[in-house]
């Protein structure tokens, strides 16, 4: 059990996802996000964290899922990925989990759709599938074209 890694499990559109807890700085309730014009579609806007301006990424939009109004359970998960701090907007943050590496299986792409590009494995916890997210891949800018540029060819 010593080699097992700890994860933060969260909810998105009824499915369970997890990020490595070493990447998680803190978790906050979603209060206010200032929209940023011309930003990528999945960037809902910016929030402050420790005096820094942090982009808030709507993970539903990032994964191609329908956007939903925030609720009392909506959370901002602040990640620090190699010095870069971003916040993920998720439906709910659930728990802190230890996941032994032997329970992680490769992902079956047909099951997870667009999110599959960002999932590095699946673990089964208490009979439930948890998708383990590769945070570095969520943050790649190339795939987050601003709407203005995306719209340009049509104009």
């Amino acid at each position, binding site marked *: 059990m010593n080699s097992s890694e700890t994860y933060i499990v969260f909810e998105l559109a009824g499915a369970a996802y997890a990020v490595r807890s070493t990447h998680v700085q803190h978790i906050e309730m979603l209060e206010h996000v200032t929209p940023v*014009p011309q930003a990528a579609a999945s960037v809902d806007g910016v929030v402050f964290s420790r005096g820094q301006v942090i982009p808030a990424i709507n993970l539903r939009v990032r994964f191609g899922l329908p956007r939903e109004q925030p609720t009392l359970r909506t959370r901002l998960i602040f990640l620090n990925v190699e010095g870069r701090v971003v916040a993920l907007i998720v439906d709910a943050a659930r728990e802190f989990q230890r996941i032994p590496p032997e329970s992680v299986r490769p992902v079956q792409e047909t099951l997870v759709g667009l999110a599959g590009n960002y999932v590095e494995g699946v673990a089964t916890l208490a009979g439930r599938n948890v998708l383990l997210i590769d945070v570095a891949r969520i943050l790649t800018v190339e795939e987050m074209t601003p709407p203005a540029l995306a719209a340009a060819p049509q*104009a």
Partner: protein
Amino acid sequence: MSTENPSERRRELLDDFYAECDELLTALREGLSAWHSAGDNALPDRAVLDELFRHAHTLKGNSAIAGLRLSEELAHGMEDVFRAISKNQLEATTAIAETLEAGTQRLEHIIGAHRHHRALPEIQDLLATYRGLLGVPSPAKPSSASTPTPPAPMPPPNAATEANALATFVPARELDARGVNVGSIRKRLGELGPILQASPRILGPGSITFEFRLKVAVFPSDPGAWADDGVTWERIVPDRGEMADEAATSDPLSLTPSHLIRVDLARLDELMRITGELVIHRSRLEELFTQISAPPAGLREASIALHRSLREMRGAITRARLVPISELFTRIPYVVRDLMRDSAKKVRVVIEGGQTEIDKFLVERLKEPLLHLVRNAFAHGIEVPATRIAAGKPEEATLRLHAESDGDSVVIRVSDDGAGIDADAVATRAARQNLKLPPVLDARGLLDLICEPGFSTRDEADLASGRGVGMAVVAESVRHHGGTLALETTLGHGTTFTLRLPLSISITDAIIVGVGSERCAVPMGTVAEIIQTPSGSLRTINREEIVPYRDGLLPVRRLRTLFQQPPATDATSTILVITSDRGSAGLIVDRVIAQREIVMRPLTDPLLRIPGLSGATELGDGRPLLILDPAPLTDGAVRPVPVSAST
């Protein structure tokens, strides 16, 4: 949910304390040196003495508040001596001035040591000296208290500052055996040029050195031979000379030759805020003009003149915040001298461009990063004399501080002619510290690596480079102020760090505007004026909206377009006239909400690099408010996305 915690708050208070100590110590040094240079047994000027007493007293009080007992006690001892002289209970002699100079230097050590969490020095020797001084009954003097202090001739404008060389002699038994002693050294130095000041320095129990300030025509070409006789040479930075010139040209009868005053930055901020309000008031006046069909003759001209004066006022306030960077640089030779005391390394400090002006706000915030770069250069860059000689370099290393302004930026360089940074060694160490190596280890990659929070070049934090303050902090501090850091290094030849910082500061005045349900801030510096115009006067020519303005036409952009909202249908349009060196453009907003002082936070994440946005701020509610960078509007760099393809 405040992020403020007591330890942070205490650190801020301590920062203020250190900053004020710096000023007080500088003032003490200046006062003592004025007294000292007046000649043996010359009575120090009453005003100078009063100042010295006050500085010591303030430093005592501040130390007590900061809980630094050692400097409190020492300053107290010095204060007593000043008081005794001032009450004619003690005769002012050069020897006493020297003990007080030693006290000032010790105070600096104490405060420096406290700041850098080093071991605090001893003060009992000095306290004993002061007690001894005060125990000696003063020679009876005719009561001069009833007569005002005679208008003693002004001391020559600080003779010590005319010196261009500092020779420090460290006596030693072996030297004495060869007949080399203070007397013989003084004689030899006298042959090179006039000795303007000679002072013994007590460095600790049983350790004494003699410093001679000279004006030499030629700097000795054989420092090595002098070093054999226990004498080290240092050039004295020219800035002090310039300062002396300035003092000399001011009214020679004035007792306070300086016409400088200390102003709290907050007061300048306040002035800027009021100016901002005036600008808004004027724009309201301008708006009222449009409702008068036939304004009285000269009214418009008066308004334009007012506008011009307001702009000048803003510029003047901005300039009032600028201080010469020498304020930052002149500390460095002292720091380096301190470092040399605990080391065999020999370094001379060269300062260039000390008159370059920089915002006071930045001076405060650059102090630590600059000190760190200097300590780093000393600890890691500069080699010991033996190594330098073996490499065919002069025994004495050169640490160069250079500043220049470049457009809207200030460029600061810290260079040394030391060993350079060994990329392979850095990579090996980084790998051992489990840091990810950049793909290419060029200057950029190397800089990124040494700026990694986990990176350290020594196994133990050594004294010189300090503990817990790494290059990461330097890089972060520069980035935080919207600047950049660059590195050039050649193995065996030296290292240069270049800091480029915006001249304007991160606190600025901005106009808060509203568009739909959103608000954002426009830096006031870019807004020439705010006009209101009937929406009917907007025309579209070549798919570009324009509005008549003054004698010409002004291209306009709609903030709503940037925010992807449909155009407003108000009868009048509120337009911010944005000017840059490229030209003017108008920005149509829904409403002008307020004029506020804002603190700019940069948008550093790649996801937030959006042309036309320069940062975010908050107005006290913790919610980010975007700051527009309107300059690109004037050159069409931001082509707002058309809302519908048909327009």
